[in-house]
């Protein structure tokens, strides 16, 4: 105890005071979310909004149980979704070789089916959290269907969807080897003495480390050299002929290379590239970058240092086990913090999907829906920027956008969205009400449960026509929040 300048009693005093202050500060601001709010929160963040009546169901089950189910989607039966996809988007199941053999008309159909599948899944799938996270990775590992065409279909099914609950390293490797990514970022033409740096740069800048986060232009060139020969095309003979990724040793640069400190002697061929990719996948900077993006996506646009540190630690300790990382985020106190409740702004896809879910909509044709999504600025798989669609309010909250959302809400309630109809369950629920007050309560409960905006409530209650009530709720500020 010699040398300590501060006596024990002083330490105790300091602790007592700060503890006191802390708890009283906590008491002032601390309010737990109510059951309704907590349920509405998970359905907005971990799903594309609640379906008609879903809030009641999940309250009964308890939101924790629902979250557990969603973290293990394989336990949820999604038969109905499979039936819908089988009927409307059969091309999703095709192999790369089969897709390659299609004619122009069929390929146009394939593009449409891919776009449709994303929206249909967001609206109808029971495995909602899976769809939410696939959307995240679809943007993080962005490809543009206008450049890669049918390759995107195979990419969606076999890269994004199969690794979303696996390990980040496997997801990353799968993207690096898929023709869609090889074509999108031009690596398939990169060869010794004629390097194309595009993929090497984006691999570090967008997919793993983050912008200017520990790599230089020299590293970009070195990495591009290591990845020469990573290409795709037709391989095999006769019946075994198929369109796949392969490593072309003839165009590979096999001189030594050093990428962000990792030394390679150049003789490893394809395995050198795999080594670098695994190195980045498990790099602490990557863990931090990915964790930050995930927290922004799920918690709020500016997550706390504390949360980021903990989630990064989980990422590193689990070897990039994504399910464990998601779990760490959604069961964190920050996720359920009243301060993060309804703090985010819905992207156009989230707005449209949640509108269709809340109104129990029947979708016979997606054409008008895709057109509306396009007007709102988020056409599926058509993001020009390799950064993918951004998730923050900054990216979407601008004055023009609101008009398209309002128009959509108005068209939907007046039955003017061709091929889309508000569902019977929704209509029945509203019509069953016995008074204007009850009707208001039902509309609010089905469209914006847990919302705390007195103005929207007032206006909805004063509307004489049900259609107006619903349109008011769908276009309200509350409904744009999640």
């Amino acid at each position, binding site marked *: 105890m010699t040398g300590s300048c501060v006596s024990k009693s002083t330490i105790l005093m300091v602790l007592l005071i700060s503890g006191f202050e802390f708890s009283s500060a906590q008491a002032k601001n601390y309010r737990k979310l109510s059951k309704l709010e907590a349920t509405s929160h998970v359905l907005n963040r971990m799903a594309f909004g609640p379906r008609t009546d879903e809030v009641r169901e999940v309250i009964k089950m308890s939101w924790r149980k629902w979250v557990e189910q969603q973290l293990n989607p394989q336990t949820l039966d999604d038969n109905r979704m499979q039936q819908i996809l089988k009927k409307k988007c059969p091309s999703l199941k095709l192999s790369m070789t089969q897709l390659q053999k299609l004619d122009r008309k069929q390929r146009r159909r394939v593009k449409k089916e891919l776009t449709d599948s994303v929206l249909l899944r967001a609206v109808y799938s029971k495995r909602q959290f899976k769809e939410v996270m696939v959307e995240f990775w679809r943007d993080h590992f962005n490809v543009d269907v206008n450049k890669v065409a049918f390759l995107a279909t195979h990419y969606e099914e076999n890269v994004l969807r199969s690794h979303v609950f696996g390990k980040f390293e496997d997801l990353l490797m799968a993207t690096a080897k898929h023709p869609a990514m090889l074509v999108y970022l031009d690596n398939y033409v990169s060869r010794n003495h004629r390097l194309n740096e595009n993929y090497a740069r984006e691999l570090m800048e967008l997919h793993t480390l983050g912008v200017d986060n520990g790599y230089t232009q020299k590293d970009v060139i070195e990495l591009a050299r290591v990845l020469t020969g990573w290409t795709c095309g037709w391989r095999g003979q006769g019946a075994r002929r198929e369109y796949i990724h392969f490593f072309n040793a003839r165009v590979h640069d096999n001189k030594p290379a050093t990428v962000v400190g990792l030394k390679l002697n150049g003789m490893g061929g394809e395995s050198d590239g795999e080594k670098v990719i695994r190195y980045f996948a498990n790099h602490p900077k990557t863990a931090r970058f990915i964790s930050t993006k995930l927290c922004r996506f799920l918690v709020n646009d500016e997550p706390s240092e504390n949360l980021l540190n903990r989630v990064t630690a989980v990422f590193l300790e689990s070897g990039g086990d994504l399910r464990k990382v998601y779990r760490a985020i959604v069961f964190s106190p920050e996720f359920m913090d009243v*301060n993060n409740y309804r703090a985010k702004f819905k992207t156009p896809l989230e707005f449209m999907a949640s509108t269709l879910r809340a109104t129990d909509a029947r979708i016979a044709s997606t054409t008008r829906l895709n057109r509306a999504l396009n007007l709102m600025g988020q056409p599926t798989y058509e993001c020009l920027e390799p950064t993918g669609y951004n998730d923050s309010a900054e990216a979407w909250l601008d004055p023009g956008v609101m008009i398209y959302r309002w128009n959509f809400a108005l068209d939907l309630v007046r039955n003017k969205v061709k091929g889309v109809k508000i569902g019977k369950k929704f209509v029945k629920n509203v019509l069953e009400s016995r008074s204007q007050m009850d009707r208001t309560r039902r509309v609010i409960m089905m469209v914006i449960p847990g919302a705390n905006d007195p103005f929207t409530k007032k206006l909805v209650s004063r509307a004489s026509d049900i259609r107006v009530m619903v349109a008011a709720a769908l276009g309200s*500020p509350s409904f744009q929040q999640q």
Partner: protein
Amino acid sequence: MNMKRRDFLKQSGVLGAAACVSSNSLASYETATTVKPKRKPTLITVYLRGGADSLGIVVPYADRRLPTVRPTLAMPGPAKGKKNVLPLDEIFGFNPNMKALHKLYKQKLCSAIVCVGSPHTTRSHFDAQDYMERAAPRLRNVRTGWLNRYLDETRTSREANLRAFSLQSLLPRSLRGDYPVLARPNAKADLALAMYSQLYAQKTRSRSQKMGLKTQRRIRAFGTRTIQQLSELNQIIERPLKEVVPFPKSRFGKQLRDLAKIVNAERGLEVTALDIGGWDHHINEGPIEGQLGKKLGDLSESIGAFVENVGSQRMENVLILIMSEFGRTVKENGNKGSDHGHGGMMIAVGGPVKGGKVYGKWTGLEKDKLYQQRDLPVHTDFRLVFAETLKDLYGFDGMKLGMFPQYNTALGPLDFLQTM
């Protein structure tokens, strides 16, 4: 069931009365939100997307190498004739289709800048446009447009409703950022405006810093902004204009006609941006009678009509700045076109311009003077043009305030504008 728009409005009883977008309610918008605008200058940027061929627009007719490098794309030197270059000085001339702009040049209301562009050498349309509109070449973490940064830095609590907007449904990147700018939707909006104006107009006394309520306030503010701006914009545009000089019937012509109405209505417009696509002429460029010629004719006539319809007095306060992401190769390619280049051109029109002159350094078309022996070099950084524009028009020292990140090369003044 189908409801007629009128009936729907009627049914929305509580929303109907207060929310009809009649001239009365617009008056209430005006008194509540529009300040008597001081005569701040107006900046209109026109972005030619695709890398417009500067050599086909500001033609160095006197350069002896021109016929060699442009065998099919060359234009006859200045003389009386439809196909002849319109002379600007002893070296340069405008493309023959730019008669209206040439007239403005002679009236000292127009000037050109040559060999201007980005220090970054990307030849990707997307990247080059992106860097230019954000005025941050190669800095990916700068997400805001340069015009938006200006608007944000100079925002005040009482601003003109129509201080900034874009007359196209997709907001150009130069206007994207923290400052809310309306991109006029190309969809009918009256029903939506009527329906939601009351819902969004509510002012809340809550000062809660809870993110949820903060977000709600923000959404409400944007929604209100949308309604106010769009209502006022539509009201002005729907009024007919007595055309002093007719506007071309093209999309750009129509946009400039609408813009002329707004400038004439004197609502304090400060910044707006327009795009014209389709300047990526790899094949059959057609500088005289083909693609490029036609586009330049439309550009020139539309701007000419705009200047006439706005009138000389108001034009003293209006600057139109035309730009593109890069110029094209000096040598034409095998398809009677040209490929992506480096240095390009800009054109400035309006009262603030020290017109009748070609600005920028010119080092000729000899191979050793070209960038990578194939493109025009960049002797003037586009950020210098942007910086001078903001300084001379608005007295805003962008360089000092770090508006143009990582740019601090004092490349000598261009001095192409009068200080307003």
